[in-house]
């Protein structure tokens, strides 16, 4: 391969590393601590903050107009200009050549629009930070404290429920559905960036970093969720809605629950119809009165998908019931044709549909937008855990206990790295520097790979990292020792380098391939902390192969092999 091509490959790798490390660098150096704090909050906390800030800013903005309507727009509100421009165009008016607070405000139809624009601005900022934080190289639980929970799928309980045995692959499918549900539920809690993943074939590992209240975490893991189909009392529903709309203060009890009116007939309950807002938080749309009698329990639901009705080309949600469920559903739908049925999840109405005809097992619900349809399909899928989970192990590391361990560990790692670097220069002089450069490059590649694969950086994986660094020097050592042997036989620098690299090649390959085999087996079969170690080791060996056989080789070729009379400085000669 030509030197130029090799240089291009090296530069390409550097570029890729930069790309993978960019979010991490940005997060740890450019994102202000305040934004980081905000992004770690729950959706509800973020909403409260965005609404609060928008209220304050709008008040201040109105104040600016009152004091001086021709004042220039402060940089803080410059983001409002883009939408104002669009609105001016939509209103078929000329866009002002110079923005003042007054004509900026005139660019919005109502005050409420300005408010939403400001609120949107705050929300997008924080959610952008939240997304970014998901892509950065995360510190593991042992480094920043937190809780790690291993959940087992309760296979026997499931078999008892369905009445026949299930295979391991079926369990894995069910466990994967559980993971989806847990991920969905987590949005409601203020836990920052939890990791939820499959371990082995039937276990779920939940890692919640930072400060987590053990009790809240348990409610979220153990919560079973309920999904019910109930009949809607249409007359009472419209009656209650008018009553409560006229008298909003009467709608809720003191602790925020929806009030049940005293004159409500027995067997009926008032609940709310909720949709998710921009923060992913349930927001009340209207009140709904339901028959207490449960038409169908969601456990009879076998699958649910979205599709498009072939005739009307409107989005629909299809779901399939088991045979018992089908019988119950037929009984429900045949007695209530032309009435409305509500899908109720954890006591909240998520969807209302009209029953057109009696239905048995295959149900189709229509009458909403594509987004609503897919939301409902998710609701139907995620209401209850398909297979129950039991806690297999639970570990929590207090952040205080972690702090000392972290600083000692990190300090030790830095010292180790420095010692290796120094030792190489002392022993191999200038060539040692090349090895150190390769070593440093190796470190960058490893960190880039770790963040590209979303691995967390635990103390064990850092140990793997430092160990790999120590070992990766080995490839350079093998090459250098070969070169020295060649020099001792009286060869020229250029010939010695060429021979050294070619003779060392298979030695290095054989030695490293065997270690990679061990690392890969471990990363597949080991337990979680061993896995982190093995992943780092495997990545490290591969990148050290690249840096030693490719990068150092290129440097030597450019400086020694291709230059007549160049002198190689590689420390003490062999006698």
């Amino acid at each position, binding site marked *: 391969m030509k030197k130029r091509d090799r240089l291009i490959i090296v530069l390409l790798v550097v570029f890729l590393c930069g790309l993978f490390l960019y979010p991490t660098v940005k997060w740890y150096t450019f994102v202000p601590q305040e934004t980081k704090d905000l992004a770690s*909050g729950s959706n509800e906390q973020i909403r409260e903050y965005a609404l609060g800030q928008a209220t304050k800013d709008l008040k201040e903005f109105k104040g600016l107009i009152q004091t001086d309507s021709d004042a220039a727009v402060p940089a803080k509100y410059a983001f409002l200009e883009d939408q104002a421009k669009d609105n001016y165009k939509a209103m078929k008016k000329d866009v002002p050549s110079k923005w003042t607070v007054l004509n900026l405000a005139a660019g919005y139809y109502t005050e409420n629009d300005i408010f939403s624009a400001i609120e949107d601005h705050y929300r997008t900022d924080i959610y952008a930070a939240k997304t970014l934080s998901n892509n950065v190289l995360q510190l593991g639980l042992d480094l920043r404290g937190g809780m790690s929970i291993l959940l087992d799928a309760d296979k026997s309980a499931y078999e008892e429920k369905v009445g026949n045995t299930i295979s391991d692959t079926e369990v894995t499918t069910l466990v994967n559905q559980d993971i989806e549900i847990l991920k969905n539920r987590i949005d409601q809690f203020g836990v920052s960036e939890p990791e939820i993943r499959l371990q082995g074939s039937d276990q779920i590992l939940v890692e919640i970093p930072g400060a987590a209240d053990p009790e809240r975490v348990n409610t979220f893991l153990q919560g079973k969720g309920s999904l019910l189909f109930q009949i809607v009392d249409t007359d009472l529903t419209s009656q209650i809605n008018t009553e409560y709309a006229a008298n909003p203060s009467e709608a809720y009890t003191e602790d925020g629950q929806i009030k049940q009116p005293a004159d409500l007939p027995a067997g009926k309950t008032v609940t709310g119809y909720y949709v998710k807002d921009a923060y992913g938080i349930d927001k009340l749309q209207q009140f709904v009165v339901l028959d207490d009698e449960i038409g169908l329990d969601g456990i009879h639901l076998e699958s649910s998908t979205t599709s498009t009705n072939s005739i009307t080309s409107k989005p629909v949600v299809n779901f399939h019931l088991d045979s018992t469920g089908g019988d119950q559903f037929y009984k429900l739908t045949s007695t209530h044709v032309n009435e409305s049925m509500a899908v109720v999840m954890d006591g909240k109405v998520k969807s209302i549909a009209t029953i057109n005809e009696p239905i048995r097992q295959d149900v189709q619900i229509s009458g909403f937008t594509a987004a609503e349809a897919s939301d409902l399909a998710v609701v139907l899928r995620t209401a209850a855990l398909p297979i129950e989970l039991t806690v*297999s192990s639970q570990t929590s590391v*207090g952040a205080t206990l972690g702090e000392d361990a972290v600083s000692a560990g990190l300090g030790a790692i830095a010292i*180790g790295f420095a010692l290796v670097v120094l030792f190489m220069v002392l022993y191999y002089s200038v060539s040692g520097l090349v090895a150190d450069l390769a070593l440093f490059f190796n470190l960058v590649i490893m960190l880039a790979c770790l963040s590209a694969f979303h691995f967390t950086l635990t103390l064990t994986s850092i140990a*793997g990292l430092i160990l790999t660094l120590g070992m990766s020097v080995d490839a350079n050592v093998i090459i250098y020792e070969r070169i020295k042997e060649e020099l001792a036989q009286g060869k020229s620098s250029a010939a010695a380098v060429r021979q050294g690299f070619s003779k060392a090649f298979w030695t290095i390959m*054989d030695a490293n391939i065997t270690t990679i085999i061990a690392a890969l087996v471990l990363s597949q079969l080991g337990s979680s902390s*061993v896995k982190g170690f093995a992943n780092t080791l495997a990545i490290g060996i591969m990148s050290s192969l690249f840096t030693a056989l490719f990068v150092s080789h290129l440097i030597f070729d450019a400086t020694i092999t291709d230059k007549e009379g160049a002198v190689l400085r590689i420390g003490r000669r062999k006698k």
Partner: protein
Amino acid sequence: MAKKDLPVIKVRKISVTISAILLIIGFASFFVNKGFNKGIDFESGLSEKIQVAPVGLEVTYNGDDDATLSVSNGDLVLETRGTNGVQEQTFAVADNPTAGDLAQAMNAADIGLTVTADEASLDSSTLISGYGFPATLSENATQINFAVGGDIKIDQIRDALTDLGNVQVQTVGDESNQLFSVRVGTSEEDTQATLEKAVSDDFASAFGEGQFVVLESNFVGPRFSQTLISSSIYAVLVAMVLILLYVWFRFHIAYALSSIIALCHDVFLLLGFISLFRFEVSSTTIAAVLTIIGYSLNATIVIFDRVRENTELMKGSSFQDIIQHSVSQSLTRTIMSSVTTVLAVLPLAILATGNIQLFAINMIFGICVGTYSSNFIAPSFLYWISGGKKVIEKKNEDK
């Protein structure tokens, strides 16, 4: 030329004897110590670190925001999240030397906190945060404990916990710290919650409600520990078989067998070392064992590679000379990579704590053993298995 070489094959009987003796010591210590000192990963049950410490402050919060209280660098930190974003307020120990001072400062801050000092004279620098911290504040009082020491003896803890059956109690550090590690065995029906509650109830009835803090709580279900052991052994076996196949393919069966023997030698010596010094066995120990496998194999392969090459080059020499010459030629490299790896791990062994420190110590021992075995044991067995005859059918591929 051959005279300057290390006489590794000549001394083979001595080196194998030394190894045998070391292995026997390791096995003996395993039986004398009745197995390994198993860490929480390997023994199912609940393991808690509990500190007996009086309650100094009781904090309630009546504000509108979400408030949490944590301890950072010894200072109390209140974090509120609301319409104004995240706000932090620190109540430094240096400014408030006693619990009474802290209570006064927190009440004076006028942020919805009501703090009562149960024991105003307690030294603020001893305040501790336990499992469950940062605490979410509410109208119900959150208690803050102060580790001021005391004179509760380990036997009193044991007495308090007798009803739990299989319980082990140890003091952590000096007894006057009143920090105890408690390990409770588990049966099938126990869950973490029931065991934790049982331990806390016993502590509460013996030393008073709230007068202790759970610093750490780990739970391992019976199934988990079994899977950990079996999956680790399985992983090692699979790795060994694959390595054997690779070396067989690249070299010769004699090379493959002797490198696997050297590997087993390293693993058993390391396990013997761990058992002899009663080091705790955890999942990081498995990581160390596996790294040593990779490391020692690496060194062995480099030497065998030389042997293969020299079999071609030194046609007139005996296999003994060839092996000895190869070992000597690789010697600088062997020493260099041992030294660099030890340099990288040594600071961890000295400065780090807990599992990582143990990992580093195991690693250093393993590196020594691995270096020894790849220079002495693996070549000796190669010599024996091949019956002293040169074995090489496959050509070195760079030629």
